[in-house]
Structure formats: structure tokens, C-alpha cells
């Protein structure tokens, strides 16, 4: 068997509730800027949780990326994915093929996931017209907006992708799973470049089910920026978010051949499921499954646990946060003093569901590239179970030029887990050598 190829990140795109584009997003991370706001449409629909994370300025932004013809067949989930994917593609220095180009790029593909997909289109257009007996009035754009693969399918056409194009869906693990799967495809030689990540629209229809489950925080409608409280003693549920994050993953050979800027290396990743056993269920993680996933990613990456400098956790602000840190501690077998830094990007964005992993992987790679650790807000009142780790949970951003390795994990409904290990790029190989940039 041929040696596995190295996979690097050469492009990033992000559309988040607290910023669009790499400069605005990394500024927001550094500043601890919350993207959570009050939304009247949630109050009107009598949601208990009336705050959420929705990217701002998209109506204006979308016309710079998409034609009227394209937009009329796209819901927010697809629009967000398109903006992040085009940004990542261009950031990698790649050209966008026009519609009339003779052939697609056979070596480039996309795995862009979504958790809920186009349910807003179903609720607002498809179901009402169908129930009224007006099927003939639905027009031609329903299927492409409600098919699960709508987001990746649209991106394929926008960029002329000719390799595997697919949408994965594994609830809140989706974006991270996409990165793991896309990296694997490149590693095994089936593609040179893959866009990877996830997107999620914002809609009361996407969020209502979570509100009904009483897993959203209903106690901070008056103070939206304080509503998303991962790791806090006063955490009372997550805050729904939306947006998209996309990474352009590339074989090291291809990146070096093109002279591309390399942000980071994807050392390895792992996905699994706890099987709804050993304490796991549809909505709760089997801790053994979580630990096996983390250990699996570390083993695939070929590193020691103490080489991890920063954990970008799943950490949503439900009861599960202390259990998650417990699983990290069990998997890494490190004492609190030797524990990596821990952060919750969701404290700033809310939980963007199928987009969360993609956006948070972009946040992870940006921090590696720029050498900083963003603070986690709203956990000054740290959960008592996390007290031993207090010194490892920065509330304000700190510069950390020595930042080398980040472990990013996502865990989702269905008891599914994903973990990926990013490292600052070292050209000489995984075992030794100077840091290149």
C-alpha cells in the first residue's frame, strides 16, 4: 500500500453571526464579540428562547456572490454555504470556472454538510401550496432547495467541481465529520482538493423543535450577548445559531505545486458513534464513545496527548459540558496542570448545528495561523465541576505564538462523534523539522 498523503488547509471561508470573512471573524474572536441578538420573529412565534445567532447583512452580501437566477432557487442554508465556499475557494488562490467552461475541475470536490437542511422552504412554500392543492404553482425550484444535498450541489455548479460532491448529515457533528471525510479522500489519493465544512439556515422552523425540547436557554432574552454560556454554572441550554464555514483541504503535493499558502495541516481525524449504549442515547453521548473518538483522532494524527495545546470543544451550554471535559480528561490522561487550553467558540456564535463544526474548524485554523487563543465569554461563573481546569479556560483572548496543535471535536444527536487534529504546518514531516510559517 502506498504511503498516505499529507493534507493541508489552503483556504478558509466563514459566514458567522459575529462576522463575515476572515478578517472580521478573527477580529470578532479576538474581541470576544457575541453574534447573539434578540429576534422579534421568535418572540412573535412564542418561542421561550427569543435570541439566536444569524449572520448580518446577507441580503446585500448575497448579490455580490450570486445572480438573481441563482438566488431564486436558494434558501438561506444554500446561500450561506455558497458564500463560505466561494470565499474559501478564492482564499486558496483558485479560479472560479465560469458556466461556459468546457470541463469541470475533476480533481476538486466538496463535502458540505447540513443538520436540518431546507425545512424552511418546506414549511413556507412546499407544504402550504401542496395542502391547498396548488402543486402546479410550486415552480421548478422546490426539489433543489429541499433535497439534503442542496447546499453542496449548488456549490458544485458555482465552482465547477468535478470530484465527489456530497452533503453529509450527522446532526451537530456534521461540519467536523465533513472535514474528517474530505481529508481522508485526499489522503487516499481520490481527490486533490476538497471543500469541507457545513451550513445551516436560520428559521423558526429549524429552531422550534429544539425550543420544544427545552434545550434552548430561555433565561436571557433581555441580555442576548450573555445568553450563550458554555461551561458556566448558570448554563441553561444552548442558543441556536446559523451560518457556514468551509475549509479548502488540499494534498500537500498539490499545494506545493501551486505555491499555495498553507494555513495548517490536518494531521488526522476520527468519527464514530456511541451506539446509544453505556449511557448514550439519541440525545446524550456515550462517554466511552466520545473518548474512543478523541483517542482515535490522536492515534491517526500520530501525536502524544500532551502535544495538544488547545481544545476547541463542542461545549454547547447544556448539562453535557462538564461530562465533555471529563471525557477529554479521560481520553488524554492529563492532569489539570498539564491540560491543554479549552475554549467554547459557541459562547460567541451560539450553536450553528450543522454549520457549527465547519465554522469552529475555521476558527481553530485561524488561531493556529495567527497564534492566539480566543476567550470563552459568559463563564466567569465557571461550573463547579470544571474548577480544577479554571486556569486553562481563558475568558479573554491571549496571544500564543507557540500554539502548534489544536484538537477540535463535535458531538451530536444520534450519539455521533467527530474529532480532528490540526497542526501548524511543518514542511519536513510529522516527526521533526522547523515550523514553516
Amino acid at each position, binding site marked *: 500500500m502506498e504511503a498516505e498523503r499529507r493534507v493541508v488547509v489552503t483556504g478558509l471561508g466563514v459566514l458567522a453571526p459575529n462576522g463575515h470573512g476572515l478578517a472580521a471573524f478573527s477580529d470578532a474572536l479576538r474581541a470576544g464579540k457575541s453574534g447573539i441578538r434578540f429576534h422579534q420573529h421568535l418572540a412573535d412565534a412564542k418561542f421561550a428562547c427569543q435570541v439566536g445567532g444569524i449572520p448580518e447583512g446577507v441580503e446585500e452580501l448575497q448579490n455580490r456572490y450570486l445572480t438573481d437566477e441563482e438566488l431564486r432557487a436558494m434558501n438561506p442554508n444554500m446561500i450561506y454555504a455558497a458564500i463560505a465556499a466561494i470565499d474559501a475557494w478564492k482564499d486558496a488562490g483558485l479560479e472560479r470556472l465560469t458556466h461556459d467552461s468546457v470541463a469541470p475541475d475533476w480533481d476538486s470536490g466538496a463535502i458540505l454538510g447540513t443538520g436540518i437542511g431546507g425545512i424552511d422552504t418546506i414549511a413556507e412554500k412546499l407544504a402550504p401550496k401542496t395542502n391547498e392543492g396548488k402543486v402546479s404553482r410550486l*415552480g421548478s425550484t422546490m426539489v433543489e432547495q429541499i433535497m439534503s444535498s442542496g447546499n453542496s450541489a449548488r456549490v458544485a455548479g458555482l465552482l465547477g467541481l468535478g470530484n465527489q460532491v456530497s452533503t453529509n448529515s450527522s446532526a451537530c457533528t456534521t461540519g467536523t465529520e465533513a472535514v474528517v471525510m474530505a481529508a481522508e479522500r485526499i489522503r487516499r489519493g481520490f481527490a486533490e482538493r476538497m471543500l469541507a465544512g457545513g451550513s445551516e439556515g436560520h428559521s423558526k422552523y429549524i429552531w422550534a423543535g429544539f425550543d420544544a425540547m427545552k434545550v434552548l436557554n430561555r433565561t436571557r432574552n433581555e441580555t442576548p450577548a450573555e445568553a450563550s454560556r458554555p461551561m458556566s454554572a448558570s448554563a441553561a441550554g444552548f442558543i441556536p445559531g446559523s451560518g457556514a464555514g468551509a475549509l479548502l483541504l488540499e494534498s500537500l503535493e498539490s499545494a506545493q505545486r501551486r505555491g499555495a499558502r498553507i494555513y495548517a495541516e490536518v494531521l488526522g481525524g476520527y468519527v464514530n458513534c456511541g451506539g446509544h449504549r453505556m449511557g448514550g442515547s439519541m440525545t446524550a453521548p456515550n462517554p466511552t464513545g466520545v473518548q474512543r473518538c478523541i483517542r482515535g483522532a490522536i492515534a491517526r494524527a500520530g501525536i502524544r496527548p500532551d502535544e495538544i495545546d488547545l481544545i476547541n470543544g463542542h461545549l454547547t451550554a447544556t448539562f453535557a459540558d462538564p461530562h465533555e471535559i471529563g471525557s477529554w480528561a479521560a481520553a488524554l490522561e492529563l492532569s489539570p496542570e498539564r491540560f491543554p487550553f479549552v475554549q467554547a467558540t459557541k459562547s460567541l456564535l451560539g450553536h450553528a448545528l450543522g454549520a457549527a463544526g465547519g465554522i469552529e474548524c475555521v476558527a481553530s485554523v485561524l488561531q493556529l495561523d495567527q497564534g492566539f487563543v480566543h476567550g470563552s465569554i459568559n463563564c466567569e461563573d465557571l461550573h463547579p465541576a470544571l474548577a480544577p481546569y479554571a486556569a486553562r479556560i481563558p475568558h479573554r483572548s491571549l496571544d500564543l505564538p507557540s500554539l502548534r496543535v489544536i484538537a477540535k471535536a463535535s458531538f451530536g444527536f444520534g450519539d455521533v462523534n467527530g474529532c480532528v487534529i490540526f497542526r501548524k504546518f511543518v514542511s519536513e514531516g510529522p516527526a521533526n523539522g522547523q515550523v514553516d510559517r
Partner: protein
Amino acid sequence: MNEQEVFDKVVNILKPFVRDQSALLQVTKETSILKDLKVNSARLVDIVLEIEDAFDVQVSDEEADRVRTVGDAVALIVDRKK
């Protein structure tokens, strides 16, 4: 509404579906909706719906299938409005 007004209104309806907007500069009654304006054929369904709404007419599937050019669409509407 005279034929020119119908023509202008049809072109306006087609506008958002046309990928190459420059093709609209030379549009005549002979212009093919699919070949010249490069409208995605799947979107003809939407164009028919918009024509029905804009002119308050009903267009059957068979009639819609016979429309190839901008002029075909105009003729169909003018005939229906008589």
C-alpha cells in the same frame, strides 16, 4: 395592451432567468428562449407561472411546450387576451 407592450413585459419576465444579460440587448421576436438567452430549461415552468400571473391567463402544458421563441410567447398571450 398592444403587441409591443406584451413583448416588453415578456422580456422583463425573462430577465432574471437569463444568464448572459448581454443577450437581452439584441432580443427580437425570433430570439430562442433556451438557445439564445440560455435560460435553464427547468426554469420554463417558473416563466409560465409568471406569465400566467402577469397577464391573468391560463397556459396549458401543451401550449407551453410549443413555445420556443420570445415571439411564440407573445403570440400566445395576445391570442389569449383577444
